[in-house]
Every structure is written in structure tokens, then in C-alpha cells.
């Protein structure tokens, strides 16, 4: 495997995608959390839209959807990290590490799997959201921007989860993969806009790059024209840092065999 350029990565992507789409349980779990959050937040927290100062003309369901579609991307990456850990538990990873000439393509392959998973999950979540009454006013450029946000978040969460999995080399590291990502996501304007957050959460959310990503997503969905340069700047920086994190983890894993 891997004679042609990116052959290893594409082979990994094919393998991972096939394993995912042929397992209904894997597909279901990838969709489960975003759909539940969409239902619970849009269905249960709708009254928050009436809080004085809640400024989002497209409605609470669209407001929530702007977060949930990004959550679907992040979960695609988290569950791909679980796959990496499972590969170690099953002994597959050692064969991959020994057999792959360009080992960095293993990481790229896992990222490609996560991107595919995330795009499919986001498409399904979007279809459900639209059927449930979410109304978004998005231009073609806005759709491209949302897709780019999904791809970037899927890559970032995969790189984090891969780095953890490559160091721990076991499914027991599962909580370490998803807990930091969940915390970063929830330390942002999830239920209400940033302007309505108070206290320490307002300060942390203000400094949290993910807040910028969520607000850009919501702005695009509401027909706005946010400054995406800063948003993609943060995402690029995170991708580079976490890419180094994952590659260092790969080196550590390879040295252990």
C-alpha cells in the first residue's frame, strides 16, 4: 500500500469509510449526539429566545443549528479517534505502522475519514433540521463557508483525538479524546448569544476561538457576512498545532514497536 502519492492516506480513507458505512451502529452513534442536541436545545430551550437582548432574527432553532452542525463535525473527529484507539487494541495499528513507508499519511488518512464522516453527518443533520423547521438564509458562498468550517473542525478534532490515541494506544483513552473537545465547545455561546453570557463564562467564551467559529456559523446561516478571515486564521493555527501534536504521537507510537 502506498506506492502512489497519498496512496497510503487514500487507502486508509477507503478502509475507514467502508468500516463506518457498513456498520449501522457506527453511523448511528455519529448522528446521535448532534440530533439529540438539536432536538433538546431547539425543543426545550426555545423560551430563551424571549430573553431581552437575544438578537438573532432567524429564530432559536436556526441559532441552535449553527452550533449543532459544528458539533456534528467535531464528533466525526472524536469517533475517528476512537477508531485509531480500537486499531491499537485490535493489533491492526502495529501492522499499519510497520508496513507504511510514509507514516504521516496514516494521520492524513484518518483525517480524511473524519472529514467524510463529518460531511455526511452534517448533511443528514441539516436535512433533519430543515424538515423540522429550521430556516436559514444562506448564499452559495455561505454554504461553502459552512462546509469549510465543517472540514476544518473535523480535521482539528481528529488530530487531537489521534494524538491522544497514538500516545495511549487504547480505547481507555476515550474520555481524554472527547472531554477537552466538549469543554471547548461548551465554554462558548451555546444556549444564548455571547452578549447574554455573564461572569467568568463571558470572559472565557470571549477568549475561546471556538466562540468565533460558532458565531460565524450562525451569522452565515442568518444571511450575515461575518469576517471569516479571523475564523479561518484560528482554525489554521489550531490545525498546525494539533497536526504537530498528532505527528509527535505517531513518532512515539512507532518507537514503541
Amino acid at each position, binding site marked *: 500500500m502506498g506506492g502512489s502519492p497519498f496512496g497510503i492516506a487514500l487507502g486508509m480513507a477507503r478502509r475507514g469509510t467502508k468500516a463506518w458505512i457498513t456498520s449501522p451502529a457506527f453511523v448511528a452513534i455519529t448522528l446521535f449526539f448532534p440530533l439529540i442536541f438539536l432536538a433538546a436545545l431547539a*425543543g426545550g430551550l426555545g423560551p430563551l429566545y424571549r430573553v*431581552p437582548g437575544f438578537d438573532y432574527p432567524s429564530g432559536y432553532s436556526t441559532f441552535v443549528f449553527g452550533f449543532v452542525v459544528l458539533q456534528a463535525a467535531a464528533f466525526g473527529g472524536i469517533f475517528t479517534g476512537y477508531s485509531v484507539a480500537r486499531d491499537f487494541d485490535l493489533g491492526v495499528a502495529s501492522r499499519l505502522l510497520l508496513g507504511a513507508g510514509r507514516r504521516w499519511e496514516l494521520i492524513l488518512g484518518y483525517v480524511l475519514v473524519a472529514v467524510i464522516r463529518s460531511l455526511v453527518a452534517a448533511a443528514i443533520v441539516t436535512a433533519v433540521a430543515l424538515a423540522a423547521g429550521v430556516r436559514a438564509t444562506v448564499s452559495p458562498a455561505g454554504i461553502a463557508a459552512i462546509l469549510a468550517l465543517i472540514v476544518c473542525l473535523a480535521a482539528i478534532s481528529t488530530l487531537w483525538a489521534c494524538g491522544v490515541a497514538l500516545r495511549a494506544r487504547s480505547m481507555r483513552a476515550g474520555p481524554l479524546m472527547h472531554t477537552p473537545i466538549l469543554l471547548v465547545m461548551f465554554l462558548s455561546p451555546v444556549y444564548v448569544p455571547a452578549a447574554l453570557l455573564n461572569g*467568568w463564562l463571558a470572559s472565557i467564551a470571549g477568549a475561546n476561538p471556538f466562540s468565533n467559529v460558532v458565531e460565524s456559523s450562525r451569522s452565515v446561516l442568518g444571511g450575515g457576512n461575518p469576517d471569516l478571515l479571523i475564523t479561518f486564521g484560528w482554525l489554521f493555527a489550531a490545525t498546525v498545532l494539533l497536526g504537530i501534536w498528532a505527528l509527535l504521537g505517531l513518532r512515539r507510537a512507532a518507537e514503541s514497536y
Partner: protein
Amino acid sequence: MSAELVSGRRRGAGAFERYGLLGERALRAVATEPAAWVLALVFPVVFLAINIEALSGASALHDFPTDNIASFAIGLTFLQGALFAGVMFATDLARDIENGFMNRIALAPISAGTVLLSRLLAVAAFALVQVACFAIAGAIFGASLVDGPIELPALIGLAVLFNLAIAVVGFQLALQSGSGEMTQALFPIFFVLLLVSSALMPRGLMDAAWFHAAADLNPVSYMVEAIRSLYVTGWDASALVAGAAIALVITVAGSLFSLVRLRALLARH
């Protein structure tokens, strides 16, 4: 410990000693897992802190039951902790089936009732730790029992009962499947029950009819409301009785079913 029970050196050990040994083992299996402390203790407190700030605007809603969001949100904290703990204790039971520990128990003079009761005691002991943790955290964040310390026995009793109710549901799947991995599938189910409830918004304020109906049917809503009533309204007999009664029915029914399955499991060996 298991060798002592099986080898006969402890043959004739009293009932309390057996409960203690088995209960201690079950408690240790969960309490020594770092995930137990993070998921069942730290996470609920972290999310309480987040929810207090994130939902602070909700107190401005007409008919919102309180100005104190900490007192409103703490009900979710207790149930979230109970759900995570329940899954972990159930997973531990399933692992004991998988790894053959139950086979060894079947050879020992230990009844199914002893096995079940010891695990329930372990759940209750962990619940006491959670109550202390959540009550202290809640107090730090500004949630206070309306009628003061006199409500503590009710809070402790409800929290322990809710933990038991959720754990016995988990025991059902553990005994049915005998698989730790399958038992962990309870986590998403419990997660749905937690989110599609009145944990984050009072039922009286819910706009979406389907969500309101789902929350009405969800036993977790009544459990959350029972805890919340101690912090928001004081002694609310209807809320307390509803939450306690639902949890008691689940606990008793679940325990009976678990006992039947355990007897069958132990009899097979």
C-alpha cells in the same frame, strides 16, 4: 477478596460481612477508575458552573420559577451524576460476568440476593459521596436549600434513591447482555432521558408541544423537579412524592427483575 469468599476460609461468614466484602469490591472497582471521578463527580459540577452562567438570562422570563439559576440548575447536576454512576456500576457488573467472577460466586455460598444487595449498597455509598460533592459545589455557586439543613435528609434520601433507580435499570442490561461494551450503550439512552426532560427549562415554559409531552412522560423530569423543589420552593409535597415514588417503583421493579436474572445466571454454573 473473592478467593476468601470462594475458598471457604470465610465459610460461615455472616451476611453483613458478605455484603461488606462484595459491596466494597463493587465500590472499589468503580471508585478507583479515574473516569468515575471525572464523569460522575467533576463533569456534573463543571456543567453546573457553565449552565449557571449560560442560562442566567432565563431568570428574566415571565413565570420562570426563581431568580437563582444555581438553585434551578442543580437538579440536573444530581441526575447527571446519577446517570454516569449508574452506567459505570452496571458496566462493572457486566464485566464481572464477562471475566468469570460470577462463575466463582456461583460456586460460593452466596445468594443472588446478597450479590444484588451488596452492589446496591455500593451504589448508595457512591451516591453519598456525590451528594456531598454536589451540595457543597452548589452552595459555593449560590444554590441553597430553601428551608436550610432540615432539608438535607430529604436531599440525601432522594439522591440515593435516584442513583439506585438508575443503577438497577443498568443492571438489567448488564445481566441481559453480559457485555460491558453493550452495557455502555446505556449512556446515550440515559443522555437522551436527561436532555429531553425539564432539566434545563421548566415544563410550564416549554413551547414545543412534542418536547413538552416527552418531558411529561420522562421519569427523569420528576426526579430533577424533586431535587429542584428543595432548592427553589422548599417542601413541595407533590414534587417530592412524584419524584420519590417514580424512583421507588423503578428501584423495586428493577431489583426484582435483576434478582430473577441473577438467580438464573448463578444457577447455570
